[in-house]
């Protein structure tokens, strides 16, 4: 069965979706991704959907699900490269993905993730110090 590769880059997971998502593929991706987050203890998930030209409410929900699941597991999700038509469709469907961070391309998405992680580290420094 077709699978979407999930690449590990340091503390982040990188997913580039190069095919149009159909329902089962999306569900598999959701499943794989969450397992991967728990296995690698990733701090951030970057999903590149620049090649996705068709979305429906189900895809929108899957993206939202991935974001909220990752959040519970302490990973920030960034969706990058959404096409204008896709953005308009999602807004028209009423899915504004308010829990998801977005960026224009992978580069900016990585920057955003680094910023977020850096912030987290700073916040938790006190905690770590007490452990050490």
């Amino acid at each position, binding site marked *: 069965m077709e699978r979407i590769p999930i690449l590990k880059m340091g503390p982040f997971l990188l997913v580039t979706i190069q095919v149009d998502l159909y329902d089962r593929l999306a569900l598999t991706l959701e499943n794989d991704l969450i397992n991967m987050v728990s296995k690698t203890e990733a701090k951030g998930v970057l999903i590149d959907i620049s090649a996705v030209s068709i979305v429906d409410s189900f895809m929108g929900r899957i993206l939202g699900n991935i974001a909220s699941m990752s959040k519970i597991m302490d990973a920030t999700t960034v969706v990058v490269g*959404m096409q*204008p038509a*896709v*953005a*308009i469709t999602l807004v028209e469907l009423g899915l504004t993905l308010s829990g998801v961070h*977005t*960026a224009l391309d992978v580069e*900016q998405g990585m920057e955003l993730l680094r910023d977020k992680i850096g912030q987290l580290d700073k916040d938790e420094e006190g905690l770590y110090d007490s452990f050490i």
Partner: protein
Amino acid sequence: MNKESAAALKSKKKQILENWLSNQLQDAALRDDLMSVAELQQQSEEFLTALIKAFGTSSAEDTDSEGYEPIRDILNEISISRARQGFSPRETSSYILSLKEVLSNVLEDRFKEDPATLYREIISMNKIMDSLSMVTMETYIKGREEVILRQTNEMSEISTPVIRVWEGILALPIIGTLDSARTQVVMEALLEEIVATGSRIAILDISGVPTVDSLVAQHLIKTVSAARLMGAECIISGIRAEIAQTIVHLGIDLTNIYTKATLASALKMSFSMLNIQVTRATGTSQNNKQNFGF
């Protein structure tokens, strides 16, 4: 219309043309600023020739018949060109109506001794001319509508420019009322430009939007959400006091959206979001002038 009157009109064609032209030239509604006399003369002659030819045919009274086809074509052409040139309806219709008077005079001369025939012929001539003037008006209005439609299209295109004010910052001055169709155009233009320039911040300036009702606000929120989905932040600027009041009174929730009173403050905010610092250059004004190439 009988053969006799058609023949009479044909023989007096030159005189008719002269009288008609002098009628038109005397008329206060003549627009010699929009159209030369020579052009008018040529147009009128062409029309009259076709009309007299049609009078001679058997179905002279039916203006929908084949004999009138060249006449209708000429009239359509004249009315459309006049509508585009900006003639008023009165000025356009007086063209054909001024011919009526001249034709009546000729018929009156011809049937001086026979009032009954004169009456019949005048009625039938009137009928033809009226229906022709109706054709004129119809085409005129059609021509005006085309002009209006074109202007509407142009307006919606002109009024949605997306400007790149800084590296990574786009500005979109919205002028005029926002309806669904325009929002769609604006949204698409903005999103395309975000992709093309890789900008991270878009400023929507609504100083040119006369009123904001709940529908307009919803359209704005949609645009902002779509931009956010693509990874760009939106700032709405140019919110006037009245608009702020309406928004609050309508209970529209804009708390999740950055809003600023002026474009300048929105730009300032974008600079700080992108970690850009703008400082005044130190040095004498003389030096600065040289920098600008004075």
